């Protein structure tokens, strides 16, 4: 799954479209990492395939607090019902991108 997502981005690279796209995703991922670090009080490694709850050892409460941090930094609300489908950092970044478009 993870490699397939990377592959998708790579296709864009060759077509010359990817750099801005990749930069946006990377920026969002970096922001997710920063929010996690601020809530958890320890350094974390976040990539697209990171399973937020399992890999970052985050419980439901901490996850909610991470989401609140992200809502502030991106100035948008992330509805709880949309979060239900999110497992990886890549999916969360995708959701944030989607919600930004709506605003």
């Amino acid at each position, binding site marked *: 799954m993870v490699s397939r997502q990377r592959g998708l981005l790579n296709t864009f690279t060759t077509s010359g479209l990817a750099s801005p796209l990749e930069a946006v995703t990377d920026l969002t991922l970096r922001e997710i990492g920063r929010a996690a670090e601020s809530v958890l009080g320890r350094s974390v490694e976040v990539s697209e395939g990171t399973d937020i709850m399992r890999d970052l050892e985050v*419980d*439901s*409460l*901490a996850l*909610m607090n991470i989401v*609140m941090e992200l809502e502030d930094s991106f*100035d*948008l*609300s992330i*509805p*709880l*019902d*949309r979060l239900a489908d999110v497992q990886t950092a890549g999916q969360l970044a995708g959701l944030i991108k989607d919600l930004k478009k709506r*605003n």
Partner: protein
Amino acid sequence: MGLFDKHLAYAQAYEAIRNAGADPFNVKFEQVLSPTEGIIDGRRTILLGSHNYLGLTFDKAVVEAAAGALTESGAGTTGSRIANGNFDGHRRLEAELARFYGRKHAMVFTTGYQANLGMLSTLVGRGDHLILDADSHASIYDASRLGMAEVIRFRHNDPEDLYKRLNRLKDVPGERLIVVEGIYSMLGDVAPLKEMVAVKREMGAYLLVDEAHSMGVLGEKGRGLAELVGVEEDVDFVVGTFSKSLAGIGGFCVSNLDGFEVLRVTCRPYMFTASLPPATVASTTAALHRMETDPGLRQRVMANAQRLYDGLNGMGFVTGPTCNPIVAIALPDQPVAIGVWNALMQAGVYMNLALPPATPDARPLLRASVSAAHSDEQIDAVLGMFKQVGETFGLIESDVKRAATA
């Protein structure tokens, strides 16, 4: 692989807690002697862990009403109100609640949990927005999953954050329903309701207040936080429960909004469950009457809360921000919390132990629920136990040490 494998981490954590002493999540009362005393493990124990705010569980009028209804109307209704009929008591209780709150409509549910589940999942639907305080009760979160509305959380008790979230929805269609609680059950803190009402007015939304822990406790008539701060007009829906101040079980919602009655045929947690048994309906109606006619009950529970709250703070314990019948004591970590809970149980007082993630800020909490029925002597006895246990665990300084460092 088995069905229970996914719960393995919980099972192991629970096992570790049980191995540390008694099981805080499965306390057995061999006998309940009064609203404030029971026998646990053969010991006479002060009960400080039930939400018996007005101490009405053994009230003569309340118990007699239940006994009378039991004899007269039988043990249960054996069905739901839409399919199997209303008993006279259901309608009467609803009329009494509507009158008590000064509102046109009242609907009774079989539990308080179902009242939230029903109201929140039915009032807003697809395309609407349900806006919750982050520290909402589990029944509110569960309701948000049953309904189809978009669910947005705002920071606990933070009107500015609420404003920010409503502002982001400015041009988005759909109704907005804000949900807050009168008294929050973990820390005993209250919502800044006046400020929230101002935000609601400015941004346009409906407001529902869950007064489960504040009914019978706050406000001159005991109608809760909205009455206390004088904003009842701006609260569109009040949800409450019969299982705390009213000493029974069940839940309700009252409102002045026209069209409310349609909920009786659209609200699934109201429709598809058996209605409250006659004894409970009668005891609840009697307890409501007792609560209304004896304001001394409310004064006593608040005075008792103040006695406990001041005593604990005076010793140096870390408590919640507001003095209310829920008195929460923050503890540094889980092993200490479990140790303290067990030591207090051994000393002769039963309280609640609340562990993360059920608590805000990932802090373990000891939680006391004070009753109007507690005597000054009982509160002082509990404070004595806290002093001893607090010193043993190094949570507070002993008088000797304090004098030496002063």
